[in-house]
């Protein structure tokens, strides 16, 4: 897999390689691998990477955390690592300490809303919340009369309708019915649901880019092994061109995602330029997941369509990740409106500002 000169990523890759080998996991029908993997990740402090030390986390930089998520994508990690990182980060915005254990963020879609009632309790419904069923706590973004707050909520107090996304990971509907939060504090100035969705979208973009890197890797290897018409299929020009296009999609996803991560990690404010980066990454990575994933399957023929083969661990997850924190259609409309409202002559200056 890809090399790394980043200590957080190195630690994570070692754990992934030891405890989350995609083939081993794919063969294990009972999910017995989940507990040791999560334990090892927690002992290394990775799920709370983005939480400062005084709030119970390991205080890694945003940049290091994003690189970690890219690596998690390369292994198609199916435990709530990204979700717990995001939840811890969200809580830290309001100086709320993170508890131990799995967490996720609510809501996970720009369309859903959780509101603060007059008595201080929370109500609302959020669909497609990743790993809600596995979470012990939720970091919740709350809309109240006086603006936006951030709350820590005990999962036991919340109604969950279990569901699965396209990649067979939990994606659940979460209903808060006059739930009293463990803690609630006001969000910082200018922080809103869009900020959360953009950060979540960048996280997903890095995971998609990672999954595409692995899809390219295993597709190239397979094409060099599989023989048809007495030749390795990698020698057929049509197959080569398909793989060249997959390499292009993988490269585009990685470029968009790492650029957005860099923009967010160094942002002083969520201005139009950062918005362009984050929204573009989600749009372009989602497109790459569709185009690149279909090529990876084409190259693998029928074997790649089986549950036994590991390809679906990457391809279906990449497709599923398109839906979280706003789909590419959602962000395209928003980005298009932003561009239109700035006016035609401001389009190039916006693009060239990056």
């Amino acid at each position, binding site marked *: 897999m890809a090399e790394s000169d980043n200590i957080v990523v190195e630690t994570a890759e070692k754990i992934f390689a030891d405890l989350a080998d995609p083939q081993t996991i794919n063969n294990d029908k009972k999910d017995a691998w989940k507990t040791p993997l999560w334990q090892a990740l927690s002992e290394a402090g990775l799920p709370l990477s983005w939480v400062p030390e005084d709030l119970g986390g390991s205080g890694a930089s945003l940049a290091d955390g994003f690189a970690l998520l890219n690596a998690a994508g390369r292994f198609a990690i199916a435990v709530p690592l990204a979700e717990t990182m995001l939840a811890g980060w969200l809580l830290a915005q309001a100086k709320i300490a993170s508890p131990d254990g799995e967490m996720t963020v609510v809501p996970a879609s720009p369309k859903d809303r959780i509101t603060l009632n007059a008595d201080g309790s929370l109500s609302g419904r959020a669909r497609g919340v990743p790993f809600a069923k596995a979470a012990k706590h939720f970091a919740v973004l709350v809309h109240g009369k006086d603006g936006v707050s951030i709350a820590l909520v005990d999962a036991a107090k919340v109604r969950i309708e279990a569901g699965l996304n396209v990649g067979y990971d939990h994606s659940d509907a979460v209903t808060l019915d006059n739930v009293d939060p463990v803690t609630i504090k006001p969000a910082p100035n200018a922080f809103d649901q869009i900020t959360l969705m953009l950060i979540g979208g960048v996280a997903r973009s890095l995971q998609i880019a990672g999954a595409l890197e692995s899809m390219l890797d295993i597709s190239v290897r397979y094409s060099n092994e599989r023989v048809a018409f007495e030749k390795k299929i990698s020698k057929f020009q049509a*197959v080569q061109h398909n793989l060249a296009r997959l390499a292009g999609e993988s490269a585009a996803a990685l470029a968009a995602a790492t650029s957005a991560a860099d923009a967010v990690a160094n942002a002083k404010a969520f201005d139009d330029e950062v918005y362009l980066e984050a929204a573009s990454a989600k749009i372009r990575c989602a497109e790459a997941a569709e185009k690149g994933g279909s090529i990876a399957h084409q190259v693998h023929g029928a074997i790649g369509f089986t549950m036994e083969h590991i390809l679906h661990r990457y391809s279906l997850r990449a497709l599923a990740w398109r839906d979280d924190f706003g789909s590419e259609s959602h962000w395209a409309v928003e980005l298009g409106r932003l561009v239109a409202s700035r006016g035609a002559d401001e389009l190039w200056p916006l693009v060239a500002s990056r």
Partner: protein
Amino acid sequence: MTAALRFDPIRLPPECEQLRKEVRAFLAEEIAAGTFDPHKPNREDTDAPEFSRRVGAKGWLGMTWPKKYGGQERSFLERYVVTEEMRVANAPTRRFFVADRQSGPVLLKYAPEHIKMEILPRICRGELCFAIGMSEPNSGSDLFAAKTRATKTDGGYLINGTKIWTSSAHIADYMIAIFRTSPPTKENRRHGLTQFLVKMKQPGIKVNPIGQITGQYEFNEVVFTDYFIPDDHVLGEVDGAWKQATSELAYERSGPERFLETYYVLTELVRAVGSDPDTRSAEGIGRLVAQLHTMRRMSVSVAGMLQAGKEPVVEASIVKDIGTVWEQQLPHRVRDLAAFVEETATNRETLERQLDFAIKTAPKLTIQGGTTEVLRGIIARGLGLR
């Protein structure tokens, strides 16, 4: 990992932003003075020699070259900014662009000192136009099938044969061309080609214009009959041009000109939909902008690799493949969305005129500078498939 394709998020340094402002101000003055109309990409640039000289006077030609040859010793990233601002403004760059991007760097590497001293400063001043003589009637993608002969004679070579699709040959002062000096060998079919500096407008060269489907004349057939080239105009190794030609192409393939040729229709669409577009238009524009932004980030990243002295052959091919496919589709996607633009949009006519031209331009984008198929072959090689 099979191929570690990394596109680091290079940011343009502050000096680039300053430079960008200067280029924009310069272009605004030129537009105000009537040198060119940024909304009209469909003109022929043969009539802008004075513009070239003014760009040269600004120090924006040969920017990365040594000062002793008239260059500025500035970075690839600074050159990148100048290129993209000129392109986006639809400035008339045809006269100087090939020399600046490609021919100058070839001369820097392979020409004898006295030729460098004579020619490079003139390129930097915007006085010279160059053409590239690679393709021949039966040798396009397969460069090594080139047949036009250079036969050794007293003090030089005699050239006989035909080059084709030669952009700007009709206005060029020089051409850098490859000719056959020996037959290919059994072991190496790439052997036997040599690169030459060719002075145009001399006896023995005839330039025949070829019309393009856009209605423009930009490329030509160039016929050589006993045309004499002196020995000191040989560039690099005799019979070894294939190495030189392939490294030259890396420069030709990574720049912003590889995804911005039809860009103007996107701006015009944004103008036409106004500040409050319907959902379908907004979504279409959003996607196109996200794709454009991604490509540009990839292209800037490759410029950063060049600046760092790397040879990003595969990365440049990926950018050209994705970039040209995108700029080819762009006019069609804009046309899809333009169907919903109000009749009353003030720039409706401009948009339609531009679309008409961009749609005619589109087919060439994935052919010039190496076809999509050839690029994908290079990428496949980089992936270890060939």
